[in-house]
Each structure stands twice: as structure tokens, then as C-alpha cells.
């Protein structure tokens, strides 16, 4: 997958935030994409970290089940089939792994409840998986075999990871059929017909761009940092 995409919307929709814009933290003005913010129980504190490339930090309020959902284009993102769609981000978990959870990608949930529809990367206390949920059925796959992850599966504390989902082919519901996950450029697993479990996402099912971070057990101020968020959807 090339890192470089067409710069023209005539070719596709390129949505990304490098978190190197003004410092507004307001709902509807966060980051260069003007992310919306929805609190999960008690609000997290967003902040920006000095860095050559722009880093946004989310710090939870300090109680279990607290967190924040950042989101865009509510219920207005759908995915047809075909090749060339990517969803990727660069993230790290800073304070502890225990209870430090995120979901990043396209989903229909702004709470800690698992989305009914979406394609996302999931951290459960640093244990990585990826998921394609649909009203037609939910398929989840654990990340395995990545040399930079502990036991091939789990993020290392305070370590940056590049995580990417590559979508291809078309399923019987008109949505993407194959989802491959890469972590730091290494293959981490696949949801596909060839693997015996294709994505069932339909082309009319709606989602939104999403970064959801919450604590589910540490009861501490969990820190999560994101260097960039990027989605590319070629024009059909």
C-alpha cells in the first residue's frame, strides 16, 4: 500500500489529521478536522504535545468507565466494495496498559459499547484486535505474529505503533470483503473469505470517523497519544 495518495478529491476522499493545527479543544473545533467530542461518563482532557509532527493526547478523568469519543460525519460514512481503502493511525499508550482501551476507525458508537456497525482497530489493555461489525454479522480477529508487539499480540507501554487496515474485494452485501491488518508494517491477520470468515458489512450501513478512548479498570488517569489518523476511500 503506497503511503502517497492522490491529492485530488476527484480520485478519492482523503481524510486525515496530523494534529498540528491550532490548539482549540472545543467540541467541533478539535484538530485540523474540527473533531466533535462526546464524553463517556466523565470527560477526558485533550492536549497537544510538543513534537516535530504533531501529537494529540487524551487523558481520562481518572475513574473506570470514563473516556472520550472524537468523531466526524455522524452516520454519513458508508463503504462500497473494491480495493484501495485504508484506515490507519500511529498511537501509543503512555501510563499503563491495564484498562487503557481504544477503538479507532469507522464505527457507529460514541460510547464504550461495541459498535453494531464499523471497521476498527481495537485495544483492550494493549491487546490488539480488529473488527468488522454489521447488522449482517460481526467478525473479529486478534492480531498475532507481530514482532514489535509483546508475544506478537500486545502493545508495549509508551511505544509508538503504526496500525493499518487495508480493505479490498466486494462481499455479497456490497461492502468490503477482505480486511488485512498491519502493525508496524508487519502482517497481523486477515478477515476474508479465503480465511473462512469474510466481512459482512453492507454498502448502505453507516458509520463515522472515530477515535474512542476509555478506561475500563485501572481507575487512573489513562493517557493515550495519537500522532495521526488517516482514512483513504477511492472514488468509485
Amino acid at each position: 500500500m503506497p503511503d502517497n495518495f492522490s491529492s485530488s478529491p476527484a480520485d478519492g476522499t482523503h481524510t486525515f489529521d496530523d494534529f498540528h493545527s491550532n490548539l482549540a479543544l472545543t467540541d467541533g473545533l478539535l484538530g485540523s478536522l474540527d473533531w466533535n467530542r462526546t464524553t463517556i461518563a466523565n470527560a477526558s482532557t485533550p492536549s497537544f504535545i510538543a513534537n516535530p509532527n504533531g501529537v494529540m493526547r487524551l487523558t481520562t478523568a481518572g475513574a473506570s468507565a470514563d473516556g472520550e469519543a472524537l468523531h466526524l460525519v455522524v452516520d454519513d460514512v458508508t463503504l462500497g466494495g473494491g480495493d484501495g481503502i485504508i484506515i490507519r493511525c500511529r498511537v501509543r499508550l503512555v501510563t499503563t496498559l491495564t484498562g487503557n482501551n481504544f477503538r479507532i476507525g469507522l464505527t457507529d458508537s460514541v460510547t464504550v459499547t461495541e459498535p453494531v456497525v464499523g471497521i476498527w482497530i481495537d485495544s483492550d489493555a494493549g491487546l490488539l484486535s480488529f473488527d468488522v461489525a454489521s447488522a449482517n454479522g460481526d467478525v473479529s480477529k486478534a492480531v498475532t505474529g507481530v514482532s514489535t508487539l509483546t508475544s506478537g499480540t500486545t502493545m508495549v507501554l509508551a511505544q509508538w505503533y503504526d496500525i493499518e487496515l487495508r480493505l479490498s474485494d466486494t462481499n455479497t452485501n456490497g461492502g468490503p470483503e477482505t480486511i488485512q491488518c498491519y502493525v508496524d508494517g508487519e502482517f497481523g491477520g486477515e478477515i476474508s473469505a479465503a480465511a473462512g470468515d469474510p466481512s459482512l458489512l453492507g454498502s448502505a450501513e453507516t458509520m463515522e470517523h472515530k477515535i474512542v478512548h476509555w478506561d475500563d479498570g485501572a481507575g487512573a488517569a489513562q493517557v493515550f497519544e495519537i500522532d495521526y489518523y488517516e482514512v483513504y476511500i477511492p472514488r468509485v
Partner: protein
Amino acid sequence: MPDTISTSPADGTHVFDDFHSNSAVTTGLLGSLDWLMTTIVGASTPSFVASQNGIMRLTTDGTTAHGEAVHLMADKVSLAGGDGVFIRFRARMGTTLTGNNFRIGLSASVTATEPAVGVWVNSDAGVISFDVASTNGDISVAASGVTTLTSGTTAVVDTWHDYELRLSGTNSNGGPDQVDCFVDGEPAGSIKNSLLGSAETMEFSIVHWDDGAGASQVLDIDYYEAYIPRA
């Protein structure tokens, strides 16, 4: 420096404003990057000028020592070493050169006072120089030998000039080692052994002020662009 750079943040951070978005002139909403505005004593008037490519104009209020700083990411930009970082813009000074000053690039100051930390192009009444300031030491070099500048050194009033700083290498403080300046594509000078440290913080900034004319000084900026490859 190639004009075509990666479109993905996975490869590097590309910050640019072509000033062809909505016409808001409110702090936090200026330009497509939602620039912040900080007044230097008396506020300038930002406006947008009809053109093919988008132009933002800053006009001072007619009093000496007054101006405006337009900036982003206060104290949140640092530079590690390595090649491929550039900062560039296209600007012209209207009305007069006398007292018509700017600093454009990365800096730690939103006043007329020279920044303690930063990498920027400087106009002092049109005389062009470039500077790398650090708490470890400050190095400034005058632009020279550029055929489109008066005497090779001075911007021409009401004339567009393209300015570019190209950063390369790594110094002993972890920051960029060499800064090469180009004006209208011609070499204008070089700073070697910059002392900027990798932990020193700056912000994207366009600072414009009058320091002597007591007139409504005009600065037009066509675009601002910075690229910082991911290490």
C-alpha cells in the same frame, strides 16, 4: 527540494495555507488552518485579496511598533535533525519598504521582539536575512547575491518573492545542522552548525509590524508551507 511531497501524514507533516478558504478574520478561524491572531500593541487588519491563488493581506494600523502575529501550535513544534524539512512562503510588501518588517517561519515570539528560539526569514525594511535562534546560540545570515532582489539583498516593493529555508543534517543538540536560504529559487546564503536543540519549542508564525514609517504597512502572503518528514 521537490515541490511534490507525500500526501500522507504517515510520511511527514505537511502544514500549508494557500489563503483560499472562507474569509473569516477571527482569531482561531483565520485561513484554512484556523490561525490564531495576536496583536502587537495595535491590531492590524487582515483581509483577503482577489486573486487566482488566494492572498491574505495584513495592514498595520498606521502607528509605528504596531502589527500582528498570526500563529499556530504555540510552543508545540520542535525540530529534530535530518534532511527534508523545509519552510517556504510567497510574500510581497505593498506601500513602502521603510519600516515594513516581517518574520515568517517557526518562532517562539508573537511580538516584535526577536525570538529566542526559531528558524525564520526576516525582512527589516525589505532587507532579507534568515536566522536560527536557540538558547544555545543565535546565528543570522544576510541574504545576498539574489538577482531579483535590489543589490542582491533587498525585496522590491510591490513585487512577489518566493522564500524558502531548507534544513538538513543533525547538530550536536539533536536539531537541524544546516539551513540554506533560497529566494526566487536562487541561493541566498547558508547557516552551518545551527545550534537549535531538538527539544526547543516554536510555533508556525507569520509576524508583521511597522517599526518606523508610522504608515499603514501592507504585507501580502500568497501561501505559507512547512514540511517535516516523520523521523
